[in-house]
């Protein structure tokens, strides 16, 4: 197993004749030195703000506003975390985020898989047209649909409900595209053999096609979970408070409390909101990258 396989930055498949040409391409000692300098620079650029946020979340209130700034808390405290979780209904926002992310992800994954199955392994008139209708939805910006959807959902009396947030977001175009391509890559001989053995369409999906598609399915699932956890505009429009509001909405509420921002708790809540998705990312980055790069990169 290579170094790359562990961290996940490995190409899915290399075309014949391709191989790593690292260092060979633009190599040389000068490039090495420039490389390390560049690496340090970009690492600082990304890591410093994150470090600053975490440090601030552990500072006592007066220490946040001292000059020059403290790059390490003089009096480390978790008071910021305490007020972050008590000043707003933090755990209600957190619960809503978990519920909405879970339900929406399950819906999207199931719908994506069954649509992709129908579009790749079943024959019916107008199949290509249906596929086009699904894929073209990718080109429609959310912001165009928001006004009319807001009116519709309000008329139904669905504002401040889970279904009001979930159902309008549940249609899946990208996942259908991704899974369809995966299903089409399953060898025809295997599918034929399963059919000869008497497997019906659903058994074929569940026992043959899906088990051969785990890596893509996992990548699709992770990307979906991360996207839904971060969804902002629609939940923001659909919820007024902590009844069904998600974490990003809770965050902005904390910030707007009584006009001036108390940065300690705000940074603490921000850290708490970032943490779950960062943990998921660190554990599963390999799969996530596979899903993102599928279809984007042709050798």
């Amino acid at each position, binding site marked *: 197993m290579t170094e790359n396989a562990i961290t996940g930055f490995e190409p899915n498949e290399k075309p014949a004749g391709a191989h790593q040409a690292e260092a060979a391409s633009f190599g040389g000692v000068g490039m090495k030195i420039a490389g390390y300098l560049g690496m340090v620079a970009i690492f600082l650029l990304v890591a410093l703000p994150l470090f600053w946020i975490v440090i601030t979340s552990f500072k006592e209130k007066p220490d946040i506003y001292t000059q020059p700034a403290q790059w390490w808390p003089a009096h480390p405290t978790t008071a910021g975390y305490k007020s972050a979780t008590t000043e707003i209904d933090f755990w209600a926002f957190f619960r809503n985020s978990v519920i909405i992310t879970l339900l929406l992800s399950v819906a999207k994954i199931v719908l994506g898989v069954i649509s992709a199955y129908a579009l790749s392994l079943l024959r019916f*008139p107008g199949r290509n047209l249906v596929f086009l209708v699904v894929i073209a939805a990718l080109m429609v910006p959310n912001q165009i649909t928001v006004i009319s959807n807001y009116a519709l959902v309000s008329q139904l009396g669905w504002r401040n409900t889970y279904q009001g947030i979930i159902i309008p977001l549940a249609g899946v175009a990208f996942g259908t595209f991704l899974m369809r391509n995966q299903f089409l890559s399953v060898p025809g001989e295997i599918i034929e053999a399963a*059919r000869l053995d008497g497997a019906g369409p659903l058994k074929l999906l569940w026992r043959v096609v899906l088990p051969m598609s785990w890596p893509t399915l996992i990548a699709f699932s992770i990307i979906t979970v991360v996207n839904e956890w*971060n969804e*902002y505009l629609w939940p923001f429009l659909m919820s007024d408070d902590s009844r069904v509001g998600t974490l*990003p909405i809770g965050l902005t509420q904390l910030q707007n409390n009584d006009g001036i921002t108390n940065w300690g708790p705000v940074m603490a809540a921000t850290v708490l909101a970032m943490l779950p998705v960062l943990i998921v990312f660190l554990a599963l980055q390999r799969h996530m990258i596979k899903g993102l790069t599928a279809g*984007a990169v042709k050798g």
Partner: protein
Amino acid sequence: MTATPQSSPAPVRSGPPEPVGAPPKRSGRPYGEWLLAALLLLPNLALLVIFTYRPLADNIRLSFTDWNISAPVAHYIGFDNYTTWWHDPNAHQVLKNTLIFTVATVGISMALGLGLAILLDQQLRGRNLVRSAIFAPFVISGAAVGIAFQFVFDPNFGMIRDLFDRVGLSVPDFYQRPGWALFMVTATYIWKNLGYTFVIYLAALQGRRADLDEAAEIDGASAWRRFTKVLLPQLRPTTFFLSITVLLNSVQVFDIINVMTRGGPQGYGTTTLVYQVYRETFVNSRAGYGATIATIMFLILLVVTVVQVRVMDRGMRRD
């Protein structure tokens, strides 16, 4: 339902020939397969039609009305909204903001992403840590990044202020000056999304044909020539894909602007087309006018994307 080889929907490579004289048919497929396909596709199609295509069309209808989001009745007012927009003194600034933000985010994140991908494709110690670090912000929510960066850019107590102080520079007021505010949201957006272009370029680099590059090197081509004549042409499909997806994503940015500046300062300092749609519809209760701006934005995006596809397509065919 029993399946026969003819009824296999998979690409059939061999199989008994059709009986002579049989009526031309799509194959001996059981009728049930259509039904199953309909059953599997209907929920997703219904959702997409109701919540994506219906509002897309409805948005155009609304753009010709004076609707405010709460009233049940909307009056048809013809092209009034469009002429209002044409003469709106703020429309000019909003377009300019959108253009600056989009060009800067697309250009910088693609150039930087490619540069970093080439850098971290080299054999360097610790590159995996840095690769993960670059990609990590991409998974954090825009709202959280926006809030966090408000304090990073805070002109009185923020991180940038402290760094500027240390090297003896005075920090601009990112919240009061429109130009600096636009710079702030642009920088924040690039910080958050750089990992995407980086990862896609890195994957493309690792899947490329390295032998071409080696051959060019043996022939004595300079690094710059190998970059422009060998590497860039190979990466063209990836560049094409990124230029479209990054552009569409950048134009749609809402969370960072809403959290950091609410479209301000001084009225429309950081308001982009998308933010103006939100503002007119939900803050100023002019949903008809908001729909007009949304329609205009959609038309602009459509034209830009078509031109992009044309240009890139021609470029690719020439190779």
